[in-house]
C-alpha cells in the first residue's frame, strides 16, 4: 500500500518537474520582467486618467473622457499581455481566439444596449407621447 503510494507520488513529481515546467515556460506565469514591466505601465496608465479627472488640467470634459477611455483600453491590453500572458502561442492560440471572440461579444452587448436604449428613450419622450395623444380622435 505504502509502496504503491510512494510510486504514485514519485511519478507525479517526475511528471510535474518535466512537463508542467516545460509547459509553464510558455503559458501562465511569464517572467519577473513581464510582471515588473506590466506593473510600471499600469501604474502610469492609472495615474494619468486619475490626474486628468481630479486635477482637471484640460478645460474640455469631452476630450478628457476620450483620453480616459483610450488609457483604459491601453491598460486592459497591458494587463492581458503582461499579467494574463495571452499571446499567439499560449494553448495553441485558443486563449487568444476566445479572448477576441469575447471582446467582440462584449462590444456588441454594451454598445448595442446603449444604442437601442438611447433611441428608445428618444422616441418615447413625454412630448412625443402627448403629441400623439393630441392627434388621436
Amino acid at each position, binding site marked *: 500500500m505504502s509502496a504503491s503510494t510512494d510510486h504514485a507520488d514519485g511519478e507525479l513529481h517526475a511528471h510535474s518537474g518535466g512537463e508542467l515546467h516545460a509547459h509553464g515556460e510558455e503559458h501562465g506565469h511569464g517572467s519577473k520582467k513581464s510582471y515588473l514591466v506590466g506593473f510600471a505601465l499600469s501604474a502610469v496608465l492609472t495615474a494619468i486618467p486619475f490626474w486628468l479627472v481630479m486635477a482637471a488640467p484640460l478645460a474640455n470634459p469631452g476630450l478628457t473622457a476620450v483620453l480616459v477611455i483610450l488609457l483604459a483600453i491601453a491598460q*486592459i491590453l497591458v494587463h492581458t499581455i503582461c499579467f494574463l500572458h495571452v499571446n499567439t502561442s499560449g494553448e495553441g492560440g485558443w486563449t487568444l481566439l476566445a479572448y477576441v471572440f469575447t471582446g467582440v461579444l462584449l462590444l456588441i452587448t454594451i454598445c448595442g*444596449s*446603449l444604442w437601442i436604449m438611447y433611441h428608445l428613450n428618444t422616441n418615447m419622450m413625454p412630448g412625443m407621447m402627448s403629441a400623439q395623444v393630441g392627434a388621436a380622435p
Partner: protein
Amino acid sequence: MADIAPTAGFDRDTFHLIEKDGHDGGHSSPVLLGFWIYLMSDALIFASLFATYGVLSTSFAGGPTPRELFHLELVALNTAILLFSSITYGFGMLAMEEGRQRSVQLWLAVTALLGIAFVGIELYEFGVLASEGATPQRSGYWSGFYTLVATHGLHVTTGILWIGLMMVQVAKRGLTLVNKRRLLCLSMFWHFLDVVWIGVFTFVYLLGMLR
C-alpha cells in the same frame, strides 16, 4: 475503519489518474483552457452589468448624482491596492515556478491581505454613500451602480476565500502538480478581476465625475 482506509486510498489514486489524464496532451492543458473560457463567460456577465449601468446612467429620479457623492481619493487608493495585489500574486507564481513553498505562502498571504483591504474600503465607501442617501433603492442609477460594483467586490471576496483554501492546500500537500494547476487558475482569476476593475474605475467613477 478497515473498510474506510482502502476506499480512501482508491479515491486518491483515481483522483490523480483523472488529473493525469487531463494533462497528457503535450503542453496544452484542457483545465487551464476550460478555466479561461469560464473567465470569458464571466466577462460577459460583467458586460451585461456594464450595459445596464450605462443604460441607467442618467436615471437619478431626483436623487443624488455620482458627481456629488463620489470620493475619487478612495477609488484611487483601492485601484492602487488591487494593482499591488496583482503583482504580489505574480511574485507568488514566480516563487511557485522555482519551487519555493514558503515564499509562495508568503505572497499568497500578502495578496489576500491586500484583497481584504480592498473589500474593506469598498464596504466603507458603500456605507458613506448610503448614509448620504444613495442606497440601491434610491434610483435606477444607484441600483445599477451597486449591482455592478458589488458584483466585482463579491468576485474579489470569492478570490480571497480561494487564496485561503490554496494556502491550506499548499501547507498540507506542498507544490504538487494539482496544486500548481489550481494556483495557475487562481492567478488568471485574480488578474482578470483587476482587468474588470479597470472598466469599473474608468466607466463608473472617472466618467461619472465628468458627466
